[in-house]
C-alpha cells in the first residue's frame, strides 16, 4: 500500500494573482515553473489532482530522461513539487466561470472567486463520446473512460476497448492484466499507435484487434452486456458479448469556459499564435487544448515554457 502525499491547498486567503493557470497538467505546471522563477505570483487551479490526465497513465515511456518509463502519478507529483518549489500555489478548486472581457480577469471556482492580470489556459482534452444509442444509458454501467480507476471491476470478464490509437492500445495492455479477453474495435484499417505499442499488442495473447469496424450501439439490461459493431467494408453487423467497454476514440477540447470568448478552430481547439497568445490580450493557451499538431507530454511541457515566458513578458509590459 502506498502512503504518499501530493501537497495541494484550498485554504488560500489570497484572492488576486498576477498569473492564473487553469489546469495542472504538464503544460500548466511547466508554465507555473517558468512564472515562479520569474517571481510572478502564480495560482494553478486544478479540479482533480496535480498532474492532470497524466496521473491516469500507468507508465510513460516516451518522455525524455526516463528510458525505463515513469508512472504518470509519479511524474505528475514531481511536476507539482517542482512548481511549488518556485512559489506557485496549487489550488484544488474547479474553475466554473471565467470573465475575460475586462481586466483584471475574473475567475469563479467551486469554492470562491479570484482575479488575475493574466491567464494561461491549460485545460487539456476529454475523451470524445461516440454518440451512438445506449452510450448515455450505460455510461458508468459498464462503459468507462478510466482504465486505472475501473479495471478491477472487470476481473475475469470479456471487455472491449474502442479505438486503437496510443491511448486505446496502451490502456488495453494495462486492462489485459484484469480482463479475460479484450477486443479492440478500430474504425480505420490499422492501429495508429506507435509501432512499438503495436508490436506489444501483437504479442499479447488476450487482445484481438478488429479493424475497419465501428460501434453502432450498446445494450444490456441494468448493466452493459453487449456492444453492436458494424464492419464498414461490407456493412455486416455483429454483437460482442462484453461486460465492459472503455472508450478511447479521439478527444475533444475542454473549452467550455472560453468557447464564447476566444477564437477557436473548427474542432473547438483554441487558436494561438506561435507565442501561444490567444485572441484576447493577456490570455494564453498551452498544451492539448490549443490547435497543436501533436498532443504529447513533451509538447505540452514545451508549450508551458513558452506560455509562462510570454505571460511574464506581458505582465512586465503592463507594469
Amino acid at each position, binding site marked *: *500500500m*502506498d*502512503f*504518499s*502525499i*501530493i*501537497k*495541494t491547498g*484550498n*485554504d488560500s486567503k489570497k484572492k488576486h494573482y498576477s498569473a492564473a493557470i487553469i489546469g495542472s497538467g504538464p503544460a500548466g505546471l511547466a508554465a507555473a515553473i517558468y512564472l515562479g522563477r520569474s517571481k510572478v505570483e502564480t495560482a494553478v487551479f486544478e*479540479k*482533480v*489532482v496535480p*498532474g492532470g490526465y497524466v*496521473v*491516469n497513465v500507468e507508465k510513460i515511456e516516451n518522455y525524455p530522461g526516463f528510458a525505463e518509463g515513469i508512472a504518470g*502519478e509519479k511524474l505528475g507529483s514531481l511536476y507539482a513539487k517542482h512548481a511549488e518549489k518556485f512559489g506557485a500555489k496549487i489550488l*484544488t478548486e*474547479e474553475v*466554473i466561470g471565467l470573465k475575460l472581457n475586462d481586466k483584471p480577469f475574473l475567475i469563479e471556482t*467551486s*469554492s*470562491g472567486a479570484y482575479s488575475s492580470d493574466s491567464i494561461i489556459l491549460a485545460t487539456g482534452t476529454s475523451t470524445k463520446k461516440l454518440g451512438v444509442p445506449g452510450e448515455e444509458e450505460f*455510461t*458508468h*454501467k*459498464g462503459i*468507462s473512460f*478510466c482504465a*486505472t*480507476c*475501473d479495471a*478491477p*471491476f*472487470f476481473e475475469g470478464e470479456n471487455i472491449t476497448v474502442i479505438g486503437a490509437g496510443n491511448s486505446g492500445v496502451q490502456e488495453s495492455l494495462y486492462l489485459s492484466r484484469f480482463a479475460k479477453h479484450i477486443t479492440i474495435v478500430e474504425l480505420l484499417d490499422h492501429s495508429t499507435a506507435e509501432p512499438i505499442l503495436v508490436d506489444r499488442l501483437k504479442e499479447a495473447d488476450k487482445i484481438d484487434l478488429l479493424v475497419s469496424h465501428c460501434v453502432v450501439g450498446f445494450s444490456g439490461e*441494468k*448493466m452493459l452486456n453487449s456492444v453492436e459493431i458494424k464492419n464498414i467494408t461490407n456493412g455486416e453487423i455483429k454483437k460482442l458479448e462484453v461486460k*465492459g467497454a472503455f472508450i478511447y476514440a479521439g478527444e475533444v477540447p475542454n473549452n467550455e469556459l472560453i468557447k464564447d470568448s476566444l477564437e477557436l478552430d473548427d474542432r473547438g481547439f483554441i487558436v494561438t499564435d506561435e507565442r501561444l497568445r490567444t485572441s484576447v490580450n493577456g490570455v494564453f493557451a498551452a498544451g492539448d487544448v490549443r490547435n497543436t499538431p501533436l498532443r504529447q507530454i513533451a509538447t505540452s511541457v514545451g508549450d508551458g515554457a513558452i506560455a509562462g515566458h510570454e505571460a511574464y513578458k506581458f505582465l512586465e509590459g503592463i507594469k
Partner: protein
Amino acid sequence: MSLISEEDRKYLKEEFGKNLKREVNLLYLKREKNESEYSKQTIKLLEELASLNDNLSLTVENCGDSDRMRIEGLTLCPSIKVKSERNGFINFYGVPAGHEFVSLIEGIKDMGSDNLSLPEDVVKGSQEIKEPVDIKVFITLSCPYCPGAVRTAHQLSLANKNVKASMVDANYFQELSIKYEVSSVPHIIVNDKKSFVGNMPPKMFLDKIKEALE
C-alpha cells in the same frame, strides 16, 4: 521501515501543528482474530500518524467488541473513524491508501479545526437537509477523481450533523460493490438506495444528494 516517508512526515507535522487545535482520535475497528498483513499495515500507518502530533491519538478495537459498531454508527468492518468534539462523521471503510491517503489527512485536519472549505451557499443548502442521510462513496485506490468526492461528502457531514459520510474501498468490499452494481468510481450511494457517479463541484454534489432524497 516507515510507511510514511521522512519528507511527508515533516510536511504532516507542520500541517497537523497548524490545524489540530483540539484532540482528534483515530478509531480503528478491525476484524477479530484477523491479524492479516492488511490489518498490521493499517495499524502501523495509524501509529505513525498518531506519533506526529500530541493532539492525535489512536484506538484499536475489534468490530465485535460490545456493540461497538452500532454505537459508532458503523455498518462495515474494518473501518477507520476520525473523531473529535466537532460534529461530523468522517469515516473510511477499508484503508485510505493511494490517492485516498490525502482524504484521511484532510479529514484529520478538519476534525481538529473549524475548517470548512465548502462555499457558503452549499453550507446553507446542506443545512436544509433535516432527515438522516448516509453517504457511501465507493472508490478504488488508483482513482484520482475519487478523493474529491470523498472530501465533499465528508465536508457535507461537517456542515450538517444529519449527514453521515464514509469512503468505501470497492475492491475490499467486493460483494457490496456487486450488490450496488459499482463499475465506475467514484460511485456514490445515498441511504443505500439511490446512486450517482463522478466527482463534481460541491453545489452539484449537494443537488444530487437532494435529488436522491426526493
